[in-house]
């Protein structure tokens, strides 16, 4: 076992654990934000640089600090390592800088974005963003590319995290899209303008940290915070059939995979479950899903709904807001 201290909290981890994974074991405020790392995708991480931390002591054997901030998602723990995240001003400043750069070309179109309310970039900007931008340059705009009837690609919102590419590579049978071009003109696109059709392609929507890939069958149907996320399951021959059904009254508005507290899918689900099963009779509804208290989605108080009960529309039940 290796001993590592993160923000003065000591934890023992197994060899091969990364700093980020160790921080997630501790949980709470010491966990660095991760916009590109995804534990279930091999080779993910290292790209967004929001998870940078300071290594104040490299290891017990070699106590020198590391000369640069390191990406916690891709740096393995050494025995005796001392890491600073929240308590380091340098880290906080660097992270602010990274967030500024991630937002530099972002269209800031949250008001019309289906991801709003469950967007990692919104959370990140809320946590580390500046109040005003210093840029006066026109923001980057990509030509619209149609990637098929199920998934909507909004390239302007993409943060180039590569998660969807890795998902297509590792979860689906055939990869039809990838990263084209380079530098700040680099874009996610399908190769030779094909539609992405694949039994598991819908998972790209769930792994996308922003609103660059959204569910076309749910497009503009509702804001997520008006919906009640319910754990639901069904017998499915291609996936585990364990999903979150996003309901309004007794109607299912959309189906997603179940996300854990770090925003990662517990299990990948198939396109049939996601896109075709929108009837309440398709599912066994288990009960409300726990959502982080800070999330706007918790704001609609859906959790007091009892397990298995029929859910009433939110209208009329709103409570006076402070």
């Amino acid at each position, binding site marked *: 076992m290796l001993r590592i201290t993160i923000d003065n909290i000591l934890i023992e981890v197994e060899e091969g654990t990364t700093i980020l994974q160790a921080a997630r074991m501790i949980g709470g405020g010491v966990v660095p934000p991760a916009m590109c790392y995804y534990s279930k995708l091999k080779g993910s991480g290292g790209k967004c640089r929001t998870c940078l931390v300071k290594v104040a002591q490299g290891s017990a054997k070699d106590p020198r600090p590391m000369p640069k901030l390191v990406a916690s998602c891709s740096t393995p723990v050494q025995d005796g390592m001392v890491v600073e995240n929240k308590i380091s001003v340098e880290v906080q400043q*660097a992270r602010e800088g990274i967030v500024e750069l991630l937002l530099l070309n972002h269209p800031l179109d949250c008001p019309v974005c289906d991801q709003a309310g469950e967007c990692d970039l919104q959370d990140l900007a809320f946590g580390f963003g500046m109040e005003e931008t210093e840029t006066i340059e026109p923001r980057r705009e990509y030509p619209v590319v149609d990637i098929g009837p199920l998934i909507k690609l909004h390239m302007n919102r993409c943060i*180039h995290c590569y998660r969807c590419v890795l998902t297509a590579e590792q979860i689906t049978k055939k990869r039809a899209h*990838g990263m084209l071009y*380079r*530098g700040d003109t*680099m874009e996610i696109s399908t190769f030779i303008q094909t539609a992405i059709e694949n039994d598991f392609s819908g998972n790209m929507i769930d792994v996308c940290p922003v609103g660059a890939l959204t569910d076309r069958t749910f497009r503009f149907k509702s804001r997520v915070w008006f919906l009640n996320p319910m754990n639901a399951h069904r017998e499915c021959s291609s996936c585990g059939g364990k999903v979150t059904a996003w309901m309004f009254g007794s109607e299912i508005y959309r189906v997603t995979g179940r996300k854990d507290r770090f925003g990662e899918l517990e299990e990948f689900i198939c396109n049939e479950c996601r896109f075709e099963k929108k009837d309440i009779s398709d599912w066994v509804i288990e009960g409300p899903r726990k959502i982080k208290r800070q999330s706007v989605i918790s704001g609609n108080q859906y959790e007091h709904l009892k397990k298995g009960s029929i859910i009433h529309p939110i209208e009329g039940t709103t409570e006076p807001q402070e």
Partner: protein
Amino acid sequence: MGRAVLLDKVNVPGIRDFGVYREHGGYRSVDKALGEMTPAQVQQEVIKSGLRGRGGAGFPTGLKWSFLDRKSDKPRYLVCNADESEPGTFKDRYLMEHLPHLLIEGLILSSYALGVKTCYIYIRGEFKYLVGILETAISQAKKNNYVGERILGTGFSLEIYVHPGAGAYICGEETALLESLEGKRGNPRIKPPFPAYKGLYDCPTVVNNVETLATITPIIGMGGEAYAALGIGKSTGTKLMSACGNINKPGVYEIEMGLPVEDFIYSDEYCGGIKNGRMLKAVIPGGSSVPILPADLALNTARSEARLLSYESLSEGGFESGSMLGSGGFIVYDEDACIVRNTWNLTRFYRHESCGQCSPCREGTGWMEKILYRLEHGQGRRSDIDLLVRVAKNIEGNTICPLGDAAAWPVASAIRHFRGEFLEHIK
């Protein structure tokens, strides 16, 4: 005056040909190594020589070789980095064009030392005309049993392949190069693991620059200690400098490390002074990625000692008042040169060449370029200057590969030393 150990035969007519090269003492180092030395002894000579990587970072070559995972039962590879795309740097091209056999000989020696059976020369796409030259040299060496099966009747066999890239600066970064060589998109890898353990096709790999590998030839020829006697301090031996800009004699020169910058610029043996009798304004001493130095700091350090062409002297003063030897791309500006325009131009290059993988470099290079474009075109704001410094700082040190630093340093150093000129551009 410097002693040439690399370019000493460059003016011999027909030296590109195996026969002529051989007549002038070529392949004697291979004869010596395979005849009387063990691989470990060859490596020992390289360690003794104090040779440092000529690709830009100046990492000790012998030490790098000693990191190679020799316990693994996978094949080992040697990759020669001939992607040379740094603005201002054109020494590897010159070497390959005129002395291909010097490089081949270095590759044979290095492969022997490292226990490598397959060696790749990864060459940038724009150097297509060199591919033929190198392949001819390889096949000539093969005919003479210096490459191929059982070289010179020993148990050592080696194949050398030339692999042209598609012309991307980022594919000169060693791990992006390996990705590209494997047929993938040239994105730098996240380190660790390092190539010495997991390189080409996940096998132990050494990546070295063309000049580094060519220098192995004279090192084995003359012995590591004799090579180390050349140069100054930890900057042993000689270095190829590619000089360009507002000078009378642009070109590739071999200098002995420790030559004063002043001599290099003004002596007739080298750059021959500033063109049209102008005054020297600034120098970028080691390729476009290293900090720019104003004339006074280029010629003398902040402690008023003569600035020398060596790793240590050029970096003396750190980022405040120093720079780096880098790849030896020596760019000279005269008094008429516009620093703002030049900085914008370089930033345009980095923006275009960023692979786009990590956010600080992808977004930051684009932002800096747009701001510098405005400054150069009379649409700058006063606040833009500090903004540039801040953006450069947000990129530096926070990226996957050093291209981010390479893009940040020229901007930060230009503003540090020429802030007034940036202010003048603001109406």
